[in-house]
């Protein structure tokens, strides 16, 4: 916008910044100043690349059983060792990582969509609708998450398996349930943003120009409310990965032939004394992923808040 308003904008640009940056360029620049967030992003990118490209390069099948090589520690043939059936852990972890990440991202998207919808409706309409929606949000916040998750998995597992097949059925159920239990913080954030933004001058300007409600919301309020939502969404990915791993760790997530990281840990936990590598590698993978994502969220929080003056 500022680019074709020559004199004033140019003078300002000369004064303030060496070069005009787009919003996202500026965010990226601020993000990079958060050192640990940058490291986290780098680690995460490496891990994602490994998961996506790894199986193309590292062509060991995930389910090749070899009893001669069972419970072996790391070696040249099996870089991360093997499990009790002699299956290669690296191959299994590369495969499982894809699922863990896919669950994380899909559950986050569900949480964000529900959260934004509820928050926006609540903040926009106000009154009785707001009251009801916030009551529901409070109710969901006070649900005991894991017990409920387990209950739902228990009750619906078999039917979904029958209808959608074992893999898709479990995946969809886990994603929906995790996402469906994690939208409340987003809803509250969005509602709070709406309440403050809809009184702002620029929204009033849009309103007085005759913008219909939908346009006010979609074009003016929502984009400005996005910052905290992005941060919450990032952290939700980490939380969803932990939730999926917890389920699988309890033996109630994915079936054994789908080696998500939590599932590998579940199988490994009874062999800790003679095959510690079996548990340590997937555990570290979960930990590193979650830590990286949380740091990225932290960095984004700083980067997306234009009022925050960055130290150093």
């Amino acid at each position: 916008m500022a680019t074709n308003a020559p004199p004033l904008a140019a003078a300002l640009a000369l004064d303030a910044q060496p070069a005009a940056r787009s919003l996202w360029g500026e965010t990226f620049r601020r993000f990079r100043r958060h050192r640990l967030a940058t490291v986290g992003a780098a680690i995460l990118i490496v891990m994602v690349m490994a998961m996506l490209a790894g199986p193309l390069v590292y062509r060991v099948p995930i389910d090749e059983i070899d009893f001669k090589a069972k419970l072996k520690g790391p070696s040249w043939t099996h870089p991360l060792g093997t499990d009790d059936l002699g299956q290669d852990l690296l191959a299994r972890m590369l495969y499982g990582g894809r699922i863990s990440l896919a669950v994380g991202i899909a559950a986050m998207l569900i949480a964000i969509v529900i959260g934004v919808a509820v928050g926006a409706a609540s903040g926009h309409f106000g009154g009785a609708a707001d009251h009801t929606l916030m009551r529901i949000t409070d109710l969901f916040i006070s649900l005991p998450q894991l017990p409920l998750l387990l209950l739902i998995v228990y009750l619906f597992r078999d039917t979904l398996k029958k209808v959608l097949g074992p893999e898709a059925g479990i995946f969809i159920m886990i994603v929906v349930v995790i996402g469906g239990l994690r939208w409340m913080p987003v809803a509250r954030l969005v509602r709070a943003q709406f309440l403050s933004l809809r009184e702002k001058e620029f929204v009033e300007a849009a309103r007085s120009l005759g913008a219909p409600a939908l346009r006010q919301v979609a074009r003016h309020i929502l984009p400005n409310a996005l910052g905290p939502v992005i941060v919450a969404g990032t952290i939700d990915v980490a939380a969803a990965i932990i939730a999926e791993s917890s389920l699988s760790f309890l033996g109630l997530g994915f079936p054994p032939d789908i080696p998500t990281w939590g599932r590998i840990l579940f199988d490994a936990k009874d062999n800790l004394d003679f095959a510690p590598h079996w548990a340590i590698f997937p555990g570290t993978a979960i930990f590193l992923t979650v830590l990286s994502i949380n740091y990225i969220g932290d960095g984004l929080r700083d980067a997306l808040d234009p009022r925050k003056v960055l130290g150093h």
Partner: protein
Amino acid sequence: MLAGISLVLFTILALAPGDPFEELAANPNVPREVAQALRHQYGLDDPVAVRYVRWFGAMVHGDWGFSFVSRVNVSTLIWQRLPTSLFVLGTAQALAILIALPIGTLSAVRPYSFFDQVATTLAFIGFSLPTFFTGLLFILFFSIYLGWLPFIYRADISATGWEWWWEHIRQAIMPVAVLGLAQGAGLTRFVRSAVLEVIRLDYINTARAKGLSEKVTIVKHGVRNALIPVVTLLALQIPTIFTGAVITEQIFRVPGIGSLLISSILANDTPVIMAVTFVYSCLVVTFTLLVDMLYGWLDPRITYG
């Protein structure tokens, strides 16, 4: 609130496919009429609203039915295990507060100092470590490598007197530490940011200007007020605490209601599953109420009714 939660639970139950009498119906030895009569007797053919009221009444009265697997009253089973759960949970929470309050406050008093950097980083790591992984690492290090602590929690310790106490403490160390550290890490972050907010305010300057010692200023004027937002966040965290508790109980085989839930799910023991989920809901509600009362004590401006 409990009514709301129970409504959600019941909805899930009502939406769930299959019913408890499916096996009876499939069993050729049970005549159709008998199965029908049983269904009628248990009110499964009644309208949903009637069933909800009856179910909720039964749940509240502690009338939870029989366990399919162990053939005892579900309530007996739960009352046996609830104290252990509450003990581990309570101690862990106390540990979390003991860690979080001093560390968070010290961090906030000297922001960006070396101590703060270390504490913040550790808190971040602790907050990102899933309990099931910390639990396994603890077992690996303290039980297998060092051989100091037992990794299975037993309710039936045969020793008596001091030795009994000692065994109990020894076996509780790891579960409590795992749960407490995980909680403490998150809490430290809350405490730090809350104290950081409060410490800039004018009344802290006033307190200093009055000549109060730094310690009194920070602890009595700063921390006490900072605790108000911390308690708010703590109330929101309560459901999460139980998540960690279930996993920790499962890892260390603590005979509490969390591991009861898992084992009954693996054994398809529906009455127990429902009852445990209900007990968890009750616990969440009770603890939220307790935190709300704490709120009133911290902030005298809040009155009840």
